[in-house]
C-alpha cells in the first residue's frame, strides 16, 4: 500500500496544520529544532506527527550524469565504456562498479531506468526535471522543492521550508516557486553557507529587535480584521517566522558537528552540504536541494565519472547511514536526478553527449521499495524497452513516496492545476 498518511483533503490538512500550529505557539520563541517541538505534545499525536513529518533531499546532478556509469551499466557492449557492473546486496540487481558503497545499501534504493523525457537541452531539460513537465506560457509551474514546501511545510514553521545549496555555475539554478509565489521560493545559498539577512544588525539591540516586531504585529493584527485575504495573512506569517528562521542559522554551521561526523562525509563541498542537508532535515526542513555540478562530460566522460560517481557513492552512502542511524531514513526521501542522462554512443573525445531518451534516476529511503528496479533499456542502452516514463510519472512517484496524493490539484485563481503533469500516474512498483 502506498504511504498515504494524510489524504491531502482540506479537513485533514487543516487539523494537521492546526495541531502543528499549536505546537509551535506553545514553544519558546526562537526554538529552531522542530523535531523536539513535535514531541512536546501528547505521545499519540507525537507519533502520528513523526510519521507524517516527511522530508526530501534532492541531489541535483547538474549537467546530466551518465546512467551507464551509475544505475544502468552495459558492460561488454560497444556503449558500455571501461567500467564493469557489480552485484549489489539485492540479488539480481547490478549497478556500476563506481558505486560499491551504494551497492551494499541497495535495500534502501529503488532505481528507475526508463526515463524518456525527450528534451536534451540544458535549460529546457532542467526546467522540465525541476517542475515535472514542459514549460507552459502564462502558467509558471513551481519546482519540486516549492511543491514539497507547500505540501509538507507549515505556515508558521520556525525553520525554512526549502533550502537550495549551490555548487558552481551549472548547479546555480535557483529554481522557481512559480504560481505558488515567493512564499515557497527557496532559501538560496549562492556565495556562502550563511543565509542572507539571517543575522541581526549589530547596531540594533536584541530587545529593540523583538519589541519593534511587537509594535509591527500590533498594527498588522488591526489591519487583518475584516480582510479575508490569504495574501494579507501571508505577510503577517512571514514576519512571524523571522525570529525562528534567525535562530536556525546554527543549522548551517558545520562547526557544530563533531569532527568525527565531518570526517565521515569528507572535506568536499558536496560532502559538507549533504551534512548540512541532514542537519536541516533533522530540524524539520521539508526540502533540501544540494546541487553538484560538472556532470556535463562531452569529453573525457570516464575520468569525469570516475571522480564524480566515486564522490557521489561515498557521500550518498554516508548520508544514508547517517539518516538511518538517527531514525530519519524512513521519513526522508533521497533523490538523484539531473536534467537528462548521457548518450550510449561514445564520441571522439571519449565523451558522452546529452541524452534524454533512456536514462535513470534513483529514489532512496522514505516510501520506496528498496531494491526495486523499474524499467528496462535495450542491450546498448539506446532505447527504453520496458516501462517507459516521463517526468510526470517520476514526480507522481516522488509525491506518493512522501505521502502526497499525486491526484491532488492546486486551485490557481479559477483554474485547477494538477500537482503532476496531466494524467501522470505514480509507479506503484517502486512504492513501499
Amino acid at each position, binding site marked *: 500500500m502506498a504511504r498515504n498518511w494524510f489524504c491531502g483533503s482540506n479537513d485533514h490538512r487543516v487539523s494537521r496544520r492546526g495541531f502543528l500550529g499549536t505546537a509551535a505557539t506553545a514553544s519558546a520563541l526562537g526554538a529552531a529544532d522542530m523535531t523536539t517541538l513535535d514531541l512536546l505534545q501528547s505521545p499519540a499525536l507525537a507519533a502520528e506527527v513523526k510519521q507524517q513529518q516527511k522530508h526530501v533531499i534532492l541531489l541535483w546532478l547538474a549537467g546530466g550524469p551518465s546512467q551507464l556509469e551509475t544505475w544502468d551499466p552495459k558492460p561488454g557492449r560497444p556503449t558500455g565504456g571501461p567500467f564493469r557492473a557489480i552485484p549489489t546486496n539485492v540479488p539480481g540487481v547490478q549497478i556500476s562498479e563506481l558505486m560499491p558503497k551504494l551497492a551494499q545499501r541497495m535495500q534502501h534504493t529503488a532505481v528507475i531506468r526508463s526515463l524518456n523525457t525527450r528534451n536534451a537541452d540544458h535549460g529546457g531539460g532542467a526546467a522540465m526535471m525541476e517542475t515535472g513537465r514542459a514549460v507552459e506560457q502564462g502558467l509558471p509551474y513551481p519546482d519540486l522543492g516549492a511543491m514539497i514546501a507547500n505540501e509538507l511545510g507549515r505556515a508558521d514553521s520556525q525553520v525554512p521550508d526549502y533550502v537550495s545549496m549551490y555548487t558552481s555555475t551549472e548547479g546555480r539554478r535557483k529554481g522557481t516557486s512559480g504560481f505558488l509565489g515567493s512564499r515557497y521560493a527557496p532559501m538560496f545559498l549562492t556565495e556562502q553557507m550563511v543565509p542572507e539577512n539571517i543575522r541581526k544588525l549589530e547596531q540594533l*539591540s536584541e530587545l529593540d529587535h523583538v519589541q519593534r516586531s511587537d509594535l509591527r504585529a500590533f498594527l498588522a493584527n488591526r489591519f487583518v480584521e475584516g480582510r479575508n485575504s490569504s495574501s494579507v495573512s501571508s505577510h503577517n506569517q512571514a514576519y512571524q517566522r523571522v525570529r525562528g*528562521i534567525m535562530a536556525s542559522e546554527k543549522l548551517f554551521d558545520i562547526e557544530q558537528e563533531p569532527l568525527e561526523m565531518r570526517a565521515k562525509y569528507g572535506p568536499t563541498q558536496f560532502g559538507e552540504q549533504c551534512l548540512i542537508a541532514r542537519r536541516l532535515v533533522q530540524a524539520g526542513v521539508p526540502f533540501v536541494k544540494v546541487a553538484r555540478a560538472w556532470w556535463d562530460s562531452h569529453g573525457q566522460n570516464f575520468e569525469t565519472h570516475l571522480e564524480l560517481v566515486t564522490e557521489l557513492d561515498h557521500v550518498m552512502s554516508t548520508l544514508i547511514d547517517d539518516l538511518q542511524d538517527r531514525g530519519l531514513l524512513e521519513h526522508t526521501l533521497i533523490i538523484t536526478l539531473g536534467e537528462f542522462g548521457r548518450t550510449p554512443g561514445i564520441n571522439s573525445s571519449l565523451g558522452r553527449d546529452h541524452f534524454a531518451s533512456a536514462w535513470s534516476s534513483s529514489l532512496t529511503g522514505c516510501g520506496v521499495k528498496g531494491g526495486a528496479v523499474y524499467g528496462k533499456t535495450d542491450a546498448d542502452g539506446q532505447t527504453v524497452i520496458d516501462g517507459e516514463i516521463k517526468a510526470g510519472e517520476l514526480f507522481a512517484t516522488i509525491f506518493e513516496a512522501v505521502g502526497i496524493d499525486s491526484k491532488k490539484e492546486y486551485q490557481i485563481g*479559477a483554474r485547477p492545476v494538477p500537482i503532476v503533469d496531466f494524467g501522470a500516474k505514480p509507479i506503484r512498483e517502486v512504492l513501499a
Partner: protein
Amino acid sequence: MRCLPILIVVAGLASPWNAAAGDLLPADSTVEGAIDHYIRATLVERQLAAAPRADGQTLLRRWSLDLAGRVPTLAESEAFQALSPSERPVATVDRLLASPDAAFHLRNELDVLLLPDGKSSDEWRQYLLRACQENRPWDRMFSEMLIGKEDDPAVRGATQYLRSRATELDDVTNETSRLFFGVAISCAKCHDHPLVDDWKQDHYFGLASFFNRLYVTRSRHVGERASGDVKFKTTAGLEKPAKVMFLTGTVVDEPALDRTAEQNKAEDELVRNLQQKDDQGLPPEPEFSRLRQLVDVALRDENQRFFARSIVNRIWDRLMGRGLVHPVDQMHSENPASHPELLDWLERDLVTHGYDLRRLIRGIVLSEAYARESVWQGEGDAPDPEWFAVAATRPLTPRQLSLSLQIAAMNPRDVAGAQADPTWGPRRQQLENQSFGLARELELPGENFQVGVSEALLFTNSQRIQNEYLRDSGDRLVSQLKGLPPGESVPLAFRVVLARQPDAAEQAAFAQYLHDRADRPVPATQQLVWALLTSPEFRFNH
C-alpha cells in the same frame, strides 16, 4: 495534454459573445456612470449589500498608488484636506493623471506586463515612457511593437517586445495571444481545445504563421523573411499547411509567392549573414509583411473586440483586483464575464475614443465600485469578489513598494509631490531610478500572491533598509520626528507613512513606546518608523 479546464460557470448570464451593442447604455454616458449602473444592477439583482464608500484619506492613498505608483506625500495630503469633499475626487484624479508620475507608473505597469522576466531594456522603457507621456493610443503602441521601425529612433525601443521572443515561435505566438488578445491558446498547439470550442489547432498555427518569418540579427535588429510557411500535424496524424488566420477565423489572403529557388537561396544567404556578422545594416523589409497583416487584421472593426476587450479587462483587473473576465487570459465563450454588458460598453467606449487608456483609467477610479471600503463590516461573509461589492486589498508591485518606501522615509518637507512643482518630474525620475535596486529584490505579485519569509528577513535585517529608510539625517523622516514630543511625532509619522491619523489606541501604544525609550530618542524613532513601513497597511493597496 497539458490543458487545464476552466471551471467558472456563472449561471444566468448571457454570453458576452452575443451581447448586442444596441441594448447598451448610451455611448455618451460617462465611463464612471456606466460602471456604476452595471455594477449596481448586479448587486440589486443578486440582493447583495456593498461596503460603504471609503474615507477621503484612504481614497487619496488608493488613487496615488494606482495613478502615480506611490503613496501620497504630506503636502499632497494637506492639499487634499483643503479641498471641499465634493471637489476632491475629480480634482485629485485629474491632478494625478496630469502629473509626471502618471506616465512613469503606467510605463512601469506596461513594462512588467509585456516584458517580465528581465527581458526589459532601457530603450524599451524609454519608448514606453514617451508613449505614456503623450498618452499614445493603445492601438498605435501595439502597432509599433509589432511592426518595428528599426531605423526610427522614436519607436525603435518598441521592437524589444518582438526581439526578446522572436527566436521562439511558440513564445511569441502564445504571449501575443495572451497579452494583447486575452486568449491563452497554447493548448490548441497539440489538439483542438478539449473544453472550449473556440480554439482549434488551425487557430494556433494560424496565429503562429504571422510570426514564423521573424528572425533577430547579430546586431539585434528584428527582421522578417519574405517567405516561409508553417505546417502542422493534426491529431489525426495528417500533415497540414497552416492558413494565416486570426483568432476570429479571418484568413489573410496572401499574394501568391512566385519565387525561384535562386531567390530563396539568396534570402537564406542574406539572413545567415545578418545573423552571423556584425554591421550588416538593417534587415530588408519583405514585400509582403505578415506582421503588418496581423496588426491590420486584429484592428479591423469586426475583429478588434479581442484587442480592445483584453486591455479593458486587464486595466480593470489591475485597478479592481480581479478581471471582469477572470483569469484575464481566458477570454472565451466558456468563461463569461461577470458583467458582460459593462465589458461591452467599456470596449465600445475605448474604441470610439481612440484607444485612450487614460480615459478608461479615469472612469474606473472615479466609480463608486472602485471607491468602496476594503474591509467588510456587513452581515455574514463578504460577497464574492466578482461582484465588486468590497474593494480588493492588493499587494503593491515591487516598484510601487520601493518608490513608496523612498517617499515615505524622506523628510516630508523636502518632497512636494505632484503639486505645482516644476522640479518634480526630474525628481520623480531620480527617485524611480534609486528605487530599482530594491524593486529587483521583490517578487512581482501574481494570482494568489503570498509574501515569502525572505522579504520579511530583508526588511528586518538588511543594512540597506536601515541605511536608506531609517537614517538619522536631515533628509529623512526620522530626523524630523526625533525631537518632537510623542503627541506630535506619532501623528506626523502616521500621516507621512500611512496617509492617515492614528486612532486613540495607536496613539497610546506608540506614544508609550517612545516614552519608555525617552533616553534614546533616535533608535526609538527608528523602530517606530520601521514598524509603520513594514506594516501590511503599507505593503498593500487597500
